[in-house]
């Protein structure tokens, strides 16, 4: 079996997942994992499928695209071999949440993610939320995996200095606090 990763992105409408999954099942591909999201009416998804040996990435890209076109759905498909040697942090990490807010500026995400890249901190989830169109107020929520070897205080001070230099507020908190406050513990 081949493992193939497929991404589909474009205008959302009812039937998108059916168009993709039915095309895959016709090719005898099994969807092993998938994730999808919608942002301002745009659909984006990642499928990891196991395909018979004789089915290639190009075949999959073609059949899924044809299935979408046949239903007049305006989405782009990309497929590639699923690599198993993906990034994983060699050392143990802790989940932290970095929240940045203030007036929206073009360079905020690049500036904050630059600090993460430099320190080898992987961003596991990122959301940019616009609070209020009129005031241009935005909030960025980075969920990051912070390696245990990073000095927490120095990291905090570095981020705070960056944020302060462009007039933003920033909070750096362990993820447990959000779960403790909002979720009943899983037993």
């Amino acid at each position, binding site marked *: 079996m081949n493992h193939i990763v497929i991404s589909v992105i474009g205008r959302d409408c009812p039937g998108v997942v059916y168009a993709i999954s039915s095309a895959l099942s016709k090719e005898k591909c099994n969807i092993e994992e998938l994730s999808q999201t919608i942002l301002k009416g745009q659909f984006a998804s990642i499928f990891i499928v196991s395909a018979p040996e004789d089915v290639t990435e190009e075949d999959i890209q073609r059949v899924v695209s044809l299935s979408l076109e046949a239903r007049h759905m305006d989405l782009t498909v990309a497929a590639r071999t699923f690599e198993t040697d993906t990034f994983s942090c060699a050392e143990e990490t802790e989940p932290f949440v970095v929240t940045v807010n203030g007036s929206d500026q073009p360079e905020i995400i690049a500036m904050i993610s630059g600090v993460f890249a430099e320190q080898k901190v992987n961003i596991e989830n990122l959301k940019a939320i616009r609070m209020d169109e009129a005031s241009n107020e935005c909030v960025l929520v980075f969920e990051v995996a912070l390696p245990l070897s990073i000095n927490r*205080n120095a990291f905090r001070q570095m981020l705070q200095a960056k944020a302060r230099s462009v007039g933003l507020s920033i909070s750096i908190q362990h993820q447990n606090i*959000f779960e403790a406050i909002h979720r009943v513990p899983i037993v």
Partner: protein
Amino acid sequence: MLTEREVLSTINMLRNEHLDVRTVTLGISLFDCVSHDFDVFSYKVRAKIAKYAAHLVEHCNEVGARYGIPVVNKRISVSPMAVVGAGFSADQMVRACQMLDEAAKEAGVDFLGGFGALVEKGMTPGDRALINALPEALATTDRVCSSINVASSKAGINMDAVALMGRQILKVADATKDRDGIGCAKLVVFANIPQDVPFMAGAYLGIGEPDVVINVGVSGPGVVKKAIDRAKETHESLTLSDVAEVIKSTAYKVTRVGELIGKEVAGRMNLPFGVADLSLAPTPAVGDSVGEIFQSVGLSSIGAPGSTAVLAMLNDAVKKGGVFASSHVGGLSGAFIPVSEDSSIEAAANSGALTMEKLEAMTSVCSVGLDMIAIPGDTPATTISGLIADEMAIGMINTKTTAVRVIPVPGKGVGETAIFGGLLGQAKIIPVNTGDASAFINLGGRIPAPIHSLKN
């Protein structure tokens, strides 16, 4: 993956609603320090406090930074001094208090509680020595707090102790007259004092408690008020059932924060976690007030008719949310109404909307009691004892904790302001009923323990 609402609501609670952990209190038993020789006792106490409290402040700050939730106060509670120092004279008790004050300063904590006695049924020479030492002890120290338990539902009220405390409160005020009687802000008279309170001035480590333990006091009146205000904006027909639910859910969140932080501090210090005390404890800061909650629920101010009902609902909803959030809830757990420490309650008392009598009525449904109330400096000792006796009776009959922390401000009368500063705030002096209780108080003796059946 966290949702937007989870992240934004947490950030809001933290940045705009004064969500914090009010106190992490390190309980230290002094029973193994006991000695007939004061110097040996003193040496052992200093060594034990220094050993366990050396890194308390540092650990609390680190854990606070990790979660982005400040631990506002770090404190120590110790075994009741009248018990562990039972053989000491009043002069030695004063020295013991000064020694504890130095230990507190060395550890960097803002208060140390436990310079107290349990005298609900009778007094030992040690209890008497400690109570006699109070004026000098509290005047010559800054950080030591004292609690004297004079009543319980099982033992009744020790009226001899009530009479004595009336006189001692006046003497403590007089010994600190240059600072508006601030000594009395560090002295509370209790009925049914819990053994594990982390909040001052009542904190002490009871005799059934572990050798060393971490207890946590969570607060958050600002968070509760904002949650009620938000519910009013989003619900078209908000009823009190909805308000109680909002308070309960909010108390759950606040308590979870306290427990998480308390357990982590305890883990880092390799000590057991005792209890989370979920009390709505205000500070003088605007937006961190219990009194403002009354306005959010629709009263003109705390003290208006309906206040006792609001407080009953608030206190009960806080407990319900808290007990689900933490496996070990203890201490006082409820809502505090300390007049000088809450800008909104202070304003209501100042304007006459909140009187001593209404405060007393409200204490029948909330934790603690007549708290941080400035009264005229010329109030007779027997009147103060009368106030204490009434409050103790409420606690004794209702099987709950009640307490009195009043400050007779030397040389000042009704309408004048007493300024204590910091967390203790400031207060206009309010009138006390001028009826004479002297003949009653001078009878002495004990009010017998109440019957525990035929409840009506």
